[in-house]
């Protein structure tokens, strides 16, 4: 197993600031916008973006929820092991809201497909956008593309892209891992 650094801490920081700015361009004061982090690993990115928007760009009252997609996946009983669920925390209705899904890596697009179904339990959003930190090009199984991306990566199928966050993994970095 070998691994290569795709983005170091400084590059991660720059990309986060750029993503925050792009969100502001489209959503202005976030008065009708809600952020939804996809469990389990999208929530670290979502929390980061939220605190960036609040501290560096002085946007107040941003609504952030966590969405777990375990029970909506289409690979139930197709995997060897049961997939463990994480907590869903959506304390608001998304009816008529502009929703931004936030996840760390976009690969096959199946998680986002599940998230699109899952979010319907909380109402009918007026629109849904997708923000992803790493976009693995050429590996999609479904017609799903991000609206905001931190970095586009060409990785082959037996390679794994891992996004590490300070609060969970002890550092900010993105690795390409070759099995």
């Amino acid at each position, binding site marked *: 197993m070998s691994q290569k650094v795709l983005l170091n801490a400084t590059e991660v920081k720059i990309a986060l600031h750029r993503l925050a700015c792009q969100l502001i361009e489209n959503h202005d004061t976030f008065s009708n916008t809600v952020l939804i982090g996809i469990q389990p690993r999208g929530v670290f990115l979502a929390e980061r973006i939220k605190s960036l928007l609040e501290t560096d760009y002085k946007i107040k009252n941003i609504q952030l929820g966590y969405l*777990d997609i375990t029970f*909506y996946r289409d690979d139930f*009983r197709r995997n060897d092991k049961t997939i463990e669920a994480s907590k869903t925390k959506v304390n608001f209705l998304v009816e008529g809201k502009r929703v931004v899904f936030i996840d760390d890596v976009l690969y096959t697009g199946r998680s986002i497909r599940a998230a699109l179904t899952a979010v319907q*339990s909380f109402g009918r959003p007026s629109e849904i956008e997708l923000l992803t930190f790493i976009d693995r090009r050429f590996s999609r199984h479904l017609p799903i593309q991000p609206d905001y991306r931190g970095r586009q990566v060409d990785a082959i199928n037996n390679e794994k892209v891992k996004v590490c966050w300070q609060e969970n993994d002890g550092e900010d970095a993105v690795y390409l891992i070759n099995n």
Partner: protein
Amino acid sequence: MSELSVKHLLGIKYITEADIHLIFETADHFKEVINRSIKKVPSLRDITIANLFFENSTRTRLSFELAEKRLSADVVNFSASSSSVKKGETLVDTVNNILSMKVDMVVMRHPNPGAGVFLSKHINASIINAGDGAHEHPTQALLDTYSIREKLGDVAGKNVVIVGDILHSRVALSNIFALQKLGANVKVCGPKTLLPKYIESLGVGVETNLQKALQWCDVANMLRVQNERMDISYFPTTREYTQQFGLNKQLLDSLDKEIVVMHPGPINRGVEITSDVADSKQAIILNQVENGVAIRMAVLYLLASKIDRNED
């Protein structure tokens, strides 16, 4: 560890402590789901479940059916009173007929102890025991212990007394196994005629004075007097039973602590528990019912994930 150690849920006796914790954690997630405005998830949409009730039931059957529907499974119902069982068909024949209609899971209630275990040896589908005679009622014990965990934070180290008809009760037996696996101390309390002779060999304390039992416990689980299972007289009159083993407000107030009161339903108001106690804040009877759906969703979900697609 994210998988059950068993393929069927036939009784608490056959599962491990880790299994119980996994079911609880999964139920936590489903409890959040059933409190949404849209209470349905598509997890089990390619699963068909048969509910076979060879004995009457309202609550358990409704709870299972709701759990199945909220997981998007296809459901077929069967009750013995309106079926070919009356015409003399055997259990294995009945079930095999239903299975040839491509059913993946069977939820079964049966008056004979061991019916689930027997069936699991003869058919391929995943079986959930919804009560077999006076043997076990595993999902009831899971929802009872889950409700204790929810109310008191943990089950381990708690003192739980089960009061009433222990002899005829599958709820009592499953509860004893579940509570002991989770590290609680268990006592039973009731008329000596309704306490099985072997009960102490299970490591359960016996107390025939309700006042003393309540003073000792953190949780009192009041069982129903099962008149329909009593072939002979086990106590002189219902009134005498109520005087000695019925829980009333006066008795509850005489304790120097606040205990949690549970009842698996259906309640005989004024017999094993008075109305003011059943409707008091200390009673978590309706929480038990709500948790029942979440627990059954968790059990169905975890067992369904073990069904091998290649066998289909």
